[in-house]
């Protein structure tokens, strides 16, 4: 028995526009809306809609025996909602067939796991919420951005209640073992599904490559490869970008015809079937796998060097996540959203400098002229976010200066009035007699200034009060300061 398990990654980032250093502090629009719209519309026409339609046809045609699964990021869902809600509807139709599984991931397709577990968890919850809201499902299987995976990740994901997790079937981890079985992550009760990178990449990368010895690939040949797994495995996990269909591999090379006839040829063998990752949970695990270091599905290295390989990427990521606590405590929705959109892994992929070996892919997808331009642009935007964070913090501190002080710290004026805040002080200055004022503020001392300095802690106002030569001037100074702070 060999079960074919398809999972398609559906993702587009919010690409940044060209943002020069001179705009920092002046312009808070970071995203290239027209480029993003243009890309998404193009890919919808070339891939998402025709592929969804084809898959729906296949499910109907095979009476529910053809099954697939998707992981759809929050950033692309936002763009579908904005530019093409019909794509969301089309996924809803697919979800109602009962033959389509949805996976969870970070809403922002981020590298948060490697930098902040707290932020990582928040983004998973956001994604889960979005899945419930749009498709009425709460996924049981998790896939991390770019299939980045290690033991720690599995443990953390298990603690969130997921039943299964997905990883690259990297040769250096598997060694003599086969990816065509279900495993268990180290020290958890979850199931681990491994990408069969040979067969997956035959479709995703090599399908249209005329120099490949198996070119042209057709469905009977591929089904034959799947059949040959019988006897050495239960499951063949074909994990790839959804854009493989029509965008990475072109329609005129026959990728849709390939997909269209594949279920026929695979199901022709009664020992074969299709399953979803959730169904794969029922397959017993053959053993535990140890992933001490992060493994991904990218490049020949299958590591994280495509995003965290050079000094620029490390610098950008470190500076981005160093803002976390300030950003979160700002409680400013727009600011948090922009900061999160910057976490999308694509931004760091664009900064990758290892072009010459396996870099073609990097160059093809890079909206910038070079990784250096990508870095410059990103840092300019990040520095604007930093300034906004500081401004929010300052305005919060400012409004605090206007708050009531605790009762025991109130100012007792000698005419009997009790002052609890700057509004009280302004009013008191206007109403009190010059004698009362003179009692507290004279050549020897200034009680008002001491109170504003020690209790309210507004150094600027202290100076203004000390400089005031009269009660009226002091009143004006306080009123002016209230206007600034309010």
């Amino acid at each position, binding site marked *: 028995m060999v079960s074919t398990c398809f999972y398609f990654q559906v993702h587009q980032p919010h690409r940044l526009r060209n943002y020069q250093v*001179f705009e920092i502090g002046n312009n808070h629009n970071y995203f290239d809306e027209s480029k993003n719209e243009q890309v998404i519309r193009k890919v919808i026409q070339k891939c998402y809609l025709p592929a969804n339609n084809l898959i729906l046809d296949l499910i109907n045609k095979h009476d529910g025996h053809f099954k697939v699964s998707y992981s759809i990021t929050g950033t692309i869902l936002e763009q579908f909602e904005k530019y093409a809600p019909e794509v969301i509807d089309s996924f809803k139709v697919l979800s109602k067939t009962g033959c389509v599984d949805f996976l969870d991931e970070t809403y922002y397709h981020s590298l948060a796991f490697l930098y902040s577990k707290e932020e990582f968890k928040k983004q998973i919850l956001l994604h889960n919420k979005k899945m419930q809201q749009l498709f009425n499902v709460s996924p049981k299987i998790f896939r991390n951005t770019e299939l980045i995976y290690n033991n720690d990740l599995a443990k953390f994901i298990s603690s969130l209640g997921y039943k299964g997790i997905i990883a690259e079937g990297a040769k250096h981890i598997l060694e003599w073992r086969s990816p065509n079985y279900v495993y268990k992550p180290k020290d958890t009760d979850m199931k681990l599904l491994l990408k069969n990178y040979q067969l997956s990449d035959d479709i995703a990368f090599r399908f249209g490559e005329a120099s490949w010895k198996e070119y042209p690939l057709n469905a009977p040949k591929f089904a034959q490869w799947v059949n040959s797994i019988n006897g050495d495995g239960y499951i063949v996990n074909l994990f790839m970008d959804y854009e493989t269909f029509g965008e990475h591999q072109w329609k005129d090379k026959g990728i849709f015809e390939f997909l269209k006839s594949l279920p026929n040829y695979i199901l022709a063998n009664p020992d074969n079937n299709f399953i979803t990752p959730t169904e794969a949970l029922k397959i017993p695990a053959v053993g535990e796998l140890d992933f001490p270091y992060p493994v991904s599905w990218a490049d020949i290295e299958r590591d994280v060097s495509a995003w965290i390989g050079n000094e620029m990427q490390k*610098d950008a990521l470190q500076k981005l996540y160093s803002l976390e606590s300030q950003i979160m405590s700002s409680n400013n929705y727009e600011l948090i959203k922009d900061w999160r959109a910057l976490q999308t892994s694509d931004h760091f992929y664009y900064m990758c*400098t290892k072009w010459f070996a396996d870099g073609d892919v990097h160059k093809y997808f890079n909206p910038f002229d070079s990784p250096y331009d990508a870095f*410059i642009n990103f840092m300019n935007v990040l520095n604007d976010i930093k300034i906004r964070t500081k401004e929010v913090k300052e305005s919060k501190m400012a409004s605090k200066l206007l708050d009531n002080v605790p009762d025991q710290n109130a100012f007792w004026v000698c005419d009997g009035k009790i002052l609890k805040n700057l509004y009280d002080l302004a009013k008191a200055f206007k109403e009190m007699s010059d004698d009362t004022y003179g009692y507290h503020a004279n050549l020897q001392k200034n009680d008002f200034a001491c109170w504003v300095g020690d209790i309210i802690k507004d150094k600027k106002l202290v100076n203004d009060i000390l400089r005031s030569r009269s009660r009226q001037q002091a009143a004006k100074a306080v009123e002016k300061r209230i206007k600034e702070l309010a």
Partner: protein
Amino acid sequence: MKRIRVLMFGWEFPPMNNGGLGTACYGLTKALAKNNIDILFVMPRMSGQHPNFMKLISLNFATIFINSPIREYITSSSYQKNIDEPCNSIYGKNLFEEVYRYSQKARLIASSYDFDIIHAHDWLTFQAGVIAKEVSGKPLVLHVHSIEYDRTGGNGSNSYVENIEKDSMNKADCVIAVSNYTKSKIIENYHINENKIEVIHNSIDIEEYKIKEISELKKQNKIVLFLGRVTLQKGPEYFVYSAAKVLKHRDSILFIITGDGDMLNKMVSLSASLGISDKVLFPGFLRGDSLKKMYKMADLFVMPSVSEPFGLTALEAISNNVPVIISKQSGVSEVLNHCLKINFWDIDEMSNKIISVLDHSSLHNCLSENSHKEVSKMNWNSSANKCITIYNKLLNPQN
């Protein structure tokens, strides 16, 4: 196998060169000599001031000097100025007469020496090459390091020079362009048969540019360097405008314009009128160790050329681990990936990039390391080999 003997016409050679042309001739001829090519190098200048010169090319390399004040990068009007000085009074009345004199000497040389092929560098020697071909019947290779369009930025081109370039290239058996950029400009301006034009990019032998000294200036400031002739072609005014823009946003940065040229005074007064004369330095034309030190002290090299057939200075800067911003209108941008590229007129983007490189050490380091790696892989040997392939093709057309 019989050694190929090349009659080569050039006019400047390090250390007495005024620009990239002499450096390129030096690199190419040295690598050709290493590959067993015999070169007879004809120079228009006396050798009195070059103490190292003969040593540099002593191997299988003979030199003939023609007495003439022609130098590279001379324009007709600046030639007139030189001639007016008394010591030069024995020479011809104008530049074009000198070019003619130089080419007439070629007749004598071509009939006195044995050689297999003729190779001439840039327009001043093109006619000499053509005459040598007429006299000897040997194949002629013209090596284009720049055309009149580059030197004048397309404005006020001299039609006499253009005619020499066009006629000679039509008569040549092969035209070598230093970049695809230059090849396209040759086709565009002179309609030369595209199949006759080969591209051989310039190169660099990185070890020759290293120096260890660190200057005092560098310890106090970040330094942004312009290095080249201060002429329209090299875009110095875009550099000065960008300096003014950068200095509005950052301080402790020095901008150094190294080189000489007809726009130097204009640049000095432009910096004054922009109020940045204290931040823009003009050390003049440098060579040898002072040149290397200048590269070494820079934090960033900017080459905003309006039209740059190649741009060897970018590779020289990288040899000293200095990151570079180069104009997209340059030949070197065809062979260099790990650098920042701009349109020469885009002062905002130039300033944006200057500030970013100086602000972010991670960017500076990545650029510097990766470009150094990239340039380390280059060498004149591969350029020389391409050149030898062309020689062989011309000498054995049946193969």
